[in-house]
């Protein structure tokens, strides 16, 4: 049995280095009564020190109060709590409510931006928004139309606003932002529209643009130093991105940045992943297509990359690399290492040294993953760091107008953006996953600015020969690269998990259940069916000494699109299994916050 010394990032590191990061954010992270970031802490551990609700009493949980957001669309992300005020956001039109928890959740202020509805159809896969961030007395909202707004947290008055992109070119936003030091870092969506995507830092006080780093393009655009920026321990060299594209295809190359950001104050690096290369037809874009599908470590002041690691070179399946990077300090091979754990859409769970970008572990976190046999971790090998692709499932090798069948996972990924949680008490990661496979047929497309640029036909179905469901909720050991336990779910788990010091892990399901399970065994301890499917992330806070659990309901997102109708049954005619049923038989559109607590006595 390995001896693991665990130290969750956040409060511990924060106290040691108050000059770094952002003091107001660090203060909020250190106080478990509050939640100031969507990621709960800078390390994206989604772990709360609150323990009033615990494994033995969680069964008594009951609904304390509810709130309707007034919008019937996919509700991702979670509310924030700062002091006695809760901040609730909605999908398009991106309303923000400030609720006073001391006054029965009375609406203190409401902000509703005016956005051109023509942005709606440009947003691939629903008008979701993954939430607000708090820093220096301001609430930062990144709207669907890419307007970044700083609101006075007390009054809702606009401090400043800035346009980060142009929706008429397919540039939109669904992601939250990262406040770090005196800056706020934001991403952008539009991979299905041939956008050249980027991360951008704005001044937290004024909204002035400080720097922009693209995922794809010439060195001065992607902000790499050919000599100092490394990949797998070696300098990336000159033109590391453009030389992996044909002609100027990089200009419509995608690599979008719609996922989560995490930050390490000690190394002073922030981390995120870039998405798929455009189009979905790999034959039309020869080369590795760097740096799409890449884990990035950048300096927040200059934007310059310290290291990069491309997980899926020359993507052939739409395995966006945008999922969250979870930062923990753990023992690996007997040594304390700063680790980064990432559950990729491609079905591999990666553990890296976040100081150097060295890949330590890359193992499948769903046994059905079949597009690659493994990731080659032999440093002497020519294919070091690369996945070893199985020809049968290669849509590149099978070619255009050929339907490659039985690829696992589907384009949804073994996991999408819904973030996992980490408990320093168990040393385990709790991961919401998809259990869906696909057929994929690429074909030739032409590029028109502002129009979708897809280039593949997909059909998806529950993983064949398994439990018939489309999801699992798993516990993962990132040191050994092994699943500890796995709970089958009828539908994909599209809700972000929360682990607490009470030895409970919470998550939501697409049917609308909030579930609580034992962090050691996965045993279900409590469930409650909310009015609509849950694709939001579970959060917890404390008010007047009492712990609450809150979650947004409102089915939608890609899950709502793919699963609302039920997936195609690959064995049609052989007797349909319950798992293939349509989500629309279980839930309906909604937009509600449900808040839970223990009874008063």
């Amino acid at each position, binding site marked *: 049995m390995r001896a693991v010394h665990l130290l969750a990032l956040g409060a511990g590191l924060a106290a040691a280095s108050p000059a770094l990061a952002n003091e107001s954010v660090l203060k909020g992270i250190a106080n478990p009564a509050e939640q100031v970031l969507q990621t709960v802490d800078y390390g994206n551990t989604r772990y709360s020190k609150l323990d009033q609700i615990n494994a033995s009493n969680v069964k008594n949980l009951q609904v304390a109060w509810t709130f309707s957001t007034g919008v019937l669309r996919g509700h991702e992300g979670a509310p924030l709590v700062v002091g006695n005020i809760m901040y609730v956001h909605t999908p398009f039109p991106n309303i923000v409510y400030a609720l006073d928890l001391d006054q029965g959740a009375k609406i203190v202020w409401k902000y509703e931006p005016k956005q051109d509805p023509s942005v709606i159809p440009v947003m691939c896969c629903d008008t979701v928004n993954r939430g607000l961030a708090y820093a220096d007395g301001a609430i930062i909202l990144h709207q669907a139309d890419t307007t970044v707004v700083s609101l006075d947290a007390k009054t809702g008055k606009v401090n400043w606003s800035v346009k980060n992109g142009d929706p008429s070119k397919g540039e939109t936003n669904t992601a939250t932002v990262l406040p770090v030091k005196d800056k706020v870092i934001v991403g952008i969506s539009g991979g299905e529209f041939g956008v050249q995507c980027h991360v951008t830092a704005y001044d937290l006080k004024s909204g002035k643009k400080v720097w922009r780093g693209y995922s794809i393009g010439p060195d001065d655009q992607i902000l790499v130093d050919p000599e100092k920026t490394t990949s797998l321990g070696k300098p990336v060299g000159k033109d590391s991105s453009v030389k992996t594209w044909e002609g100027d295809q990089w200009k419509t190359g995608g690599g979008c940045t719609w996922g989560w950001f995490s930050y390490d104050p000690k190394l002073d690096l922030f981390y995120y992943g870039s998405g798929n290369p455009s189009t979905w037809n790999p034959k039309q874009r020869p080369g590795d297509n760097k740096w799409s599908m890449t884990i990035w470590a950048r300096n927040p002041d200059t934007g310059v990359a310290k290291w990069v690691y491309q997980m899926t070179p020359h993507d052939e399946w739409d395995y966006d690399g945008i999922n969250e990077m979870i930062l923990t300090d753990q023992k690996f091979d007997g040594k304390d290492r700063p680790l980064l754990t990432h559950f990729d859409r491609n079905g591999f769970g990666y553990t890296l040294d976040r100081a150097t970008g060295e890949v330590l572990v890359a193992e499948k976190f769903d046994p059905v993953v079949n597009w690659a046999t493994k990731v080659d971790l032999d440093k002497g090998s020519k294919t070091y760091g690369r996945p070893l692709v199985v020809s049968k499932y290669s849509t590149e090798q099978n070619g255009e107008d050929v339907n490659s069948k039985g690829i696992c996972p589907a384009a949804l990924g073994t996991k999408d953006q819904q973030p996992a949680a980490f408990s320093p008490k168990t040393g385990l990661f709790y991961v919401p996953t998809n259990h869906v496979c696909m057929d994929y047929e690429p074909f030739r497309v032409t590029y028109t600015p502002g129009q*979708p640029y897809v280039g593949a036909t997909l059909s998806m179905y529950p993983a064949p020969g398994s439990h018939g469901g489309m999801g699992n909720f798993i516990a993962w050991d990132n040191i050994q690269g092994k699943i500890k336990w796995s709970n089958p779910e009828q539908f994909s788990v599209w809700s972000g998990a929360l682990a607490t010091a009470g030895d409970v892990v919470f998550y939501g399901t697409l049917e609308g259940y909030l579930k609580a399970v034992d962090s050691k065994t996965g045993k279900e301890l409590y469930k409650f069916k909310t009015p609509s499917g849950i694709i939001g992330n579970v959060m917890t806070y404390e008010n007047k000494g009492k712990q609450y659990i809150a979650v947004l309901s409102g089915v939608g997102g890609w899950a709502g699109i793919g699963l609302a109708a039920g997936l*195609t049954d690959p064995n049609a005619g052989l007797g349909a299994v319950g798992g293939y049923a349509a989500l629309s038989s279980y839930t309906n559109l909604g937009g509600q916050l449900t808040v839970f607590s223990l009874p008063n006595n």
Partner: protein
Amino acid sequence: MSAMKRNALLGLCGAILLGAVPVTTAVLAQDAKPELANKLDPNAKEIDEPVLKAAAAVKDEDGKYLDKDGHPTFHITNDGKKVDWYTYSGYRRYHAECHVCHGPDGMGSTYAPALKDSLKRLSYEEFYGILAGGKQEVNNTSNQVMPAFGDNKNVMCYANDLYVYLRARAAGAWGRARPGEKEEKPEAAKTAEKECLGG
């Protein structure tokens, strides 16, 4: 703005003209040739008789099937196993361009309506108009906006293919599956595709 959009608009105008003067193009039902009749899956469960009847092919122009009003339609044979080229092509294009909002197999989603139902009501002209011009329904309970695809060759070059596939879904003539057997790709389809996409 492109020649393509003009073609799309011309196509639409042409379609409206056809719709407005059905007498000139109409072929009486009794003239229907038996070889154009569909031979559907005898176990098909979702047949919508009126929609199916209205979609009956009366004319075959090099693998392109037309109904009595001169609108494109499907041709399904071999007990529901074999489809015409355009139904197959429509399936492919639908699952690239449309399904991210309208769900797999035209079944709808939390985001956009089920086209297997919409196509029971929409005329060819209405379908074409919405595809090229888009649609907005934004109010207190609904935030539904469909973009105008008039400029998008990946969609407009296959407008008729999409219509034929979705019409087959609406009639219940084709189920929730990828077509397997299909008629040969007609020369006319190859030429039209090349011209429309512009090489």
